């Protein structure tokens, strides 16, 4: 059947504007941009969105900077009888705050954003574009890496003003940083992909606070009271904090914490791949 005979309403013009809108060139020529460009664009969009979000900025930059100044300028880190030498205090403070910054961005901020994207159908819509699900996740990971890079630059800059002096061994911090990003991004996706957005919001903030207080991020696990040292050392937060402290203070790779972190990253990535729900 031809179109002209099947839609009298349209063809007689009843109610349809006599002067339609601009003519568009809509000839079908569907094709995808190259993979890397798609992922880069998604990462850039996610990073821009995060940097424009006031709550996210508070969590990822303002609070870490405040904590860095507080721990470098006061004797907060002198807990559990461990007396910190004045010379290593800035490095110790910076290491702990970098660990906190990774948790803020990769876990809390990312989980909340992904949780609401999931509830709002953003994950489903983008999964139908050339980006696909894998490109979407790659873009999110890229955005986390970009934001952590911004945090490292800002916090290291503040650290320099507080007396931190980088050494060649400081570069060893990159390994725990990357493993920490992997572990906490996976944990954030696991949370965002399995519970409701509101529950993700509450849990991601609560976990951030608990890890700050007793997870071995800013305060070393061995400085914590009761059974917490053993627990914190086995958590990804304690492992990340310890590995960063070893790298920035002593210029060493802390093997056991790195292995703990790698195990968490592998387990969380597996669990997220297994249980993540897209809608």
């Amino acid at each position, binding site marked *: 059947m031809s179109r002209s005979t099947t839609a009298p309403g349209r063809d007689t013009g009843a109610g349809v504007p006599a002067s339609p809108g601009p003519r568009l060139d*809509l000839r*079908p020529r569907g094709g995808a941009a190259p993979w890397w460009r798609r992922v880069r664009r998604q990462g850039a969009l996610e990073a821009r969105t995060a940097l424009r979000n006031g709550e996210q900025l508070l969590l990822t930059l303002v609070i870490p900077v405040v904590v860095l100044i507080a721990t470098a300028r006061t004797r907060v880190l002198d807990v559990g009888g461990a007396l910190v030498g004045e010379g290593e205090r800035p490095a110790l403070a910076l290491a702990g705050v970098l660990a906190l910054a990774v948790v803020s961005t990769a876990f809390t901020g990312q989980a909340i954003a992904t949780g609401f994207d999931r509830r709002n159908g953003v994950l489903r819509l983008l999964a*139908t574009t050339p980006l696909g699900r894998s490109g979407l996740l790659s873009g999110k990971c890229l955005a986390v890496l970009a934001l952590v890079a911004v945090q490292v630059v800002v916090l290291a800059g503040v650290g320099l003003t507080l007396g931190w002096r980088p050494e060649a061994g400081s570069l060893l911090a990159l390994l725990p940083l990357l493993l920490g990003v992997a572990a906490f991004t996976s944990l954030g996706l696991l949370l965002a992909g399995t519970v409701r957005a509101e529950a993700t919001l509450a849990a991601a903030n609560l976990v951030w606070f608990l890890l700050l207080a007793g997870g071995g991020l800013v305060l070393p696990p061995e400085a914590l009271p009761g059974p917490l040292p053993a627990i914190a050392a086995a958590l990804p937060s304690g492992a990340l904090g310890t590995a960063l402290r070893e790298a920035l203070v002593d210029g060493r790779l802390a093997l056991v914490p790195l292995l703990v972190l790698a195990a968490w990253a592998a387990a969380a990535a597996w669990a997220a791949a297994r249980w993540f729900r897209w809608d």
Partner: protein
Amino acid sequence: MGADGAGSAPVVVDSLVKRYGGRAVVDGLTFSAAAGAVTAVLGPNGAGKTTTIACCEGLRRPDGGSVRVLGLDPAADGAALRPRVGVMLQDGGLPTGAGALEVLRHVAGLHSDPVPVDDLVAALGLASFARTRVRRLSGGQRQRLAVACALVGRPEVVFLDEPSAGLDPQARLAVWDVVTQVRDAGACVVLSTHLMEEAERLADHVVVVDGGRVVAQGSPQELTRTESTLSFSATPGLPVASLQAALPPGTSVAEPTAGRYLLTGVHAGPQVAATVASWCATHDVLPEGLGAGRRTLEDVFLDLTGRSLR
């Protein structure tokens, strides 16, 4: 396009079954959608429209039957299909923290040869809120942005789930105009709707769905031309059985509201009108507003899907 396979339509849904928790939401649904045509999947809420389209988009896996889009399986061949298919979801799904134009440019950038973004902005009237964050847009503004995002990649197949829900009349006409242009450019457009007017005005082919099954399909004209109607007003309570007896067999006469008489199942020619007039004369009543009408798609739809609320 080469991958379509000879002679097969761009979208072929065959005996599709989809269950949620053991309940079949889509229950043996079959239809196909042609290139260069708008196919409307029309049905009441809960009829299975969105689930059917989600299976076509690769967002849901069928529990039975098959879905082919451009000759491919949406669930298995998503990577090959996604660049060639445009999707607008019922719940939007646009990133809420980004600006409207930023989102459209983003989706355009995922494609190799997108429609110039400015052209779509003009055609769908997006300029007035181009810099507004998606979360602050009104429902109608989001809806138009979502249509633009579905079309910006020059898709061969477009799935629009309730494209004009919540739109004001001007925006609706703008969306219809753009959808018509996509169709005229040769794309296969599949849209779901529960708006009769949308199906009647926009669709070349209507698939009426209820309870997860196709209950009727055809062009809007085919669906409505089988019967015409004749109606008139007169004093209430006339003996309709007597009038029916005077008319050709197969005609039925009813008084749906007091004083309003409706003849259905009739070919409403001058002869029938004359019979009605003379019958009225013998009963000493004046038939006011005696006129023939085509059954509307809404009449057909309500007959097919029932009048009870669900």
